[in-house]
């Protein structure tokens, strides 16, 4: 029997070698994982965008038949699922991966290998969802997939892809939440107190808390539905005692926090971009952090406002109407703080700052129509009409995507070491901005005119034709704008990585690093004595102080196991879909055995010996 031994695991002197594609598959570096998240999100955005265009083409004229009704159902369902789960969340999680460790002065995330597992579960889960088009049809019951429409009696195998695919990506997202909560709470550089963290890191912290508590309910919901469809469980089968409202409740207990999961990081991006380009500190820093926390708390108290039309009674509806309207208060605080930050600033109009500036009015429009929908009596009229479509596109596109594009232009030099072309960027911005408003503003009026959402076509006599055509034209302007973004990518990647370390005269710690950022991020951990520590150091004409003497840095080893675990889980998903129950069971056991082996795995890691520049600073 072995006695207590000293720590035996000595680090290797160099990294285990993986080359080419394997270097990416095995990477546990948060910067590479962030890049892969962003690439994958943009890849899925092409699919989601194509589906949106097909929808708009179908609605160009009355009694149009470009898409069959079934194809239309599959397209709007997959458009929603894609944009929420495979674009908005992953692109924001990509920024969190690429930027948050740099902003808090950390060398990696708390659990680098688990981080890679999150990524691969998302990527493979997303591809799994898309193979549904080739395997009997995509999900077709809408992105919130209500029972009993999503039951086996009314829907095809696409719903199985939805149930299983979202479980796979959801588990990955949940692990991201654990990972970044620990990273942000535990791994901040010496002296970086919570109230010295950059606002994007704050938004990431609060978002991860939301994910932690919002994703388990939908996981349970998806499990119930999967068991119902594959094994005839009766959760939503009314004849045998099931209750379809159970699906709605659990879905929206997840679903409402979810909309804050995809907007809070965008708030964080705007809170970084606006101070940088107005050359002023963020106005009302503490109230910004507090508003994020209050929004997160309230977001769990409003889910029933998605169910006003269910007939839950006036008392339930009133309570949830009031809590929903309350969220406008902390959100309003944020809007006014951004405006006050701009006030008197020396504003520079780059593409990043223009996206951030456009974010504010567009999000306000989405917020105001949100408060309109929060009024239960009005909601009974507006529910399931194009007004709702207009509302959530102003929030998700005008809010989340404008924020994400601001972040893309802003952090591009940090992540890829190149600056996106600003002239093309402005073309990109104006086309997206105009295209977006032309597409979605008319939908407010279509909704007030009574056009229901999710109808595959409409008759000529309703007077909806002109506004629909306007909307379709807008969608093609948007397409032109996004193609210019693609072109901007291509010409930028054709250039050498030539960005300077601090191209925007930034304020937060990520800009203190050389370009490209070395794999260990900080040669010496910085000592943080102020909010906006990098800005203060620049003003005082000194480098940021180092918190430790230079020395060898311990790095985690790359590993292919996360990729193989994710592959095993997806394999189990296909087996379950095809009703090969024993195969699914064996592969799930294989996945859990691999995970348990990771729990006892001991990584020796390796050492790097960074060159510390004269002066000993962390840059």
């Amino acid at each position, binding site marked *: 029997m072995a006695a207590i031994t000293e720590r035996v695991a000595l680090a290797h002197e160099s990294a285990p070698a993986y080359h080419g594609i394997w270097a990416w598959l095995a990477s546990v570096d948060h910067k590479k994982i962030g890049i892969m998240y962003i690439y994958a999100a943009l890849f899925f955005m092409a699919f989601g965008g194509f589906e949106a265009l097909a929808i708009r083409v179908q609605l160009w004229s009355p009694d149009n038949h470009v898409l069959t009704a079934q194809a239309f159902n599959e397209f709007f369902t997959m458009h929603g699922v894609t944009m929420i789960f495979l674009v908005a969340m992953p692109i924001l999680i990509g920024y969190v991966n690429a930027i948050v460790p740099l902003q808090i002065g950390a060398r990696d995330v708390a659990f680098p290998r688990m981080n890679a597992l999150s990524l691969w579960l998302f990527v493979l889960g997303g591809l799994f969802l898309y193979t549904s088009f080739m395997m009997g049809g995509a999900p077709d019951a809408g992105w919130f997939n209500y029972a009993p429409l999503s039951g086996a009696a009314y829907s095809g195998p696409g719903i199985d892809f939805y149930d299983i695919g979202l479980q796979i990506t959801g588990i990955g997202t949940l692990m991201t939440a654990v990972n970044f909560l620990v990273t942000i709470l535990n791994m901040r550089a010496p002296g970086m107190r919570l109230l010295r963290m950059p606002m994007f890191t704050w938004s990431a912290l609060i978002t991860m808390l939301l994910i932690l508590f919002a994703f388990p309910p939908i996981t349970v919901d998806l499990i119930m539905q999967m*068991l119902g469809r594959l094994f005839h469980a009766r959760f939503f089968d009314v004849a045998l005692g099931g209750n379809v409202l159970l699906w709605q409740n659990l879905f929206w207990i997840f679903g409402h926090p979810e909309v804050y999961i995809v907007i809070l990081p965008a708030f964080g991006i705007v809170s970084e971009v606006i101070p940088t380009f107005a050359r002023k500190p963020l106005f009302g820093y503490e109230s910004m952090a507090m508003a994020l926390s209050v929004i997160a708390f309230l977001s769990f108290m409003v889910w029933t406002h998605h169910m006003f039309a269910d007939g839950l009674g006036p008392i339930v509806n009133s309570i949830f109407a009031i809590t929903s309207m309350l969220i406008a208060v902390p959100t309003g605080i944020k809007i006014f703080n951004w405006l006050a930050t701009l006030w008197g600033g020396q504003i520079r109009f780059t593409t990043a700052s223009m996206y951030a500036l456009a974010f504010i009015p567009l999000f306000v429009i989405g917020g105001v129509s949100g408060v309109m929908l929060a009024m239960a009596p009005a909601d009974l009229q507006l529910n399931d009409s194009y007004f709702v479509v207009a509302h959530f596109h102003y929030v998700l596109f005008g809010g989340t995507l404008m924020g994400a594009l601001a972040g893309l232009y802003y952090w591009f030099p940090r992540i890829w070491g190149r600056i996106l072309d600003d002239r093309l960027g402005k073309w990109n911005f104006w086309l997206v901005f105009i295209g977006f408003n032309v597409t979605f503003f008319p939908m407010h009026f279509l909704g007030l005119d009574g056009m229901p959402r999710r109808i595959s076509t409409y008759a000529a006599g309703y007077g909806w034709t002109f506004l629909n055509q306007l909307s379709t034209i807008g969608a093609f302007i948007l397409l032109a704008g996004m193609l210019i973004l693609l072109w901007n990518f291509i010409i930028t990647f054709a250039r050498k990585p030539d960005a300077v370390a601090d191209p925007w005269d930034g304020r937060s710690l990520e800009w203190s690093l050389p370009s490209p950022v070395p794999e260990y991020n900080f040669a010496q951990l910085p000592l943080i004595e102020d909010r906006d520590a990098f800005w203060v150091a620049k003003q005082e004409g000194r480098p940021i102080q180092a918190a430790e003497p230079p020395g060898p840095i311990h790095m985690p080893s790359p590993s292919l196991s996360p990729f193989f675990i994710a592959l095993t889980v997806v394999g189990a998903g296909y087996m379950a879909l095809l009703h090969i129950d024993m195969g699914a069971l064996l592969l799930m056991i294989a996945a859990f055995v691999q995970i348990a082996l990771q729990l006892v795995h001991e990584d020796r890691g390796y050492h790097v010996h960074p060159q510390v520049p004269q002066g000993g600073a962390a840059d």
Partner: protein
Amino acid sequence: MSTESGLQRAGLDAPLELGLPKDNRILGIWIFLAGECAFFASLIGGYLGLHMNVAHGPTGAQLFDLPLTTIATLILLSSSLTVVLGVAAMQRRDVRGMQIWLWLTALLGLFFLEFQGYEFYTFYNHGLTIQTSAFGSAFFTLTGFHGLHVAFGVFWILLLLFQSMRLGINEERTTKVFIMSLYWHFVDVVWVVIFTLVYLAGKVGS
């Protein structure tokens, strides 16, 4: 506990190598268990919403065998005691004591699973399956997921035991044993809630 030290780690005492200090893992398991609370809360909420809806199948009051379930509960709760004694032995640097207590914990976990298998089989013979009624679906899903958690915990304990027997114990492995013990306590606490809300209330309530 370690959350505090992590939050307040603001001085110059940060480790030279950031690496993965053990409090990351301990904080990580606490946060993971918070998410697990939401998971079981959703399952239990679903069960409470559906447990009266037995359709044509048997009710909980007809099926539940309280004496048997009480024994199973005592077995599982004792395993929380044995895992504490295992961690205490580990902290006294008594590796052999730790291993004995962990073996006992895994064994108690297996006894509990044995009980659950027997219970499921009995209920099946009395005509309750996942397909019988909403009650059946909710009952088997809730208790089944709890059972899967116990099974994963047993497997985890066995892996840690084999590791400690082959390689001994060091600072990193003690942290892993401690993390496992937190998970194990959580699974036990969930069972206390299930025992109260499903079995006791099910027997008395209807």
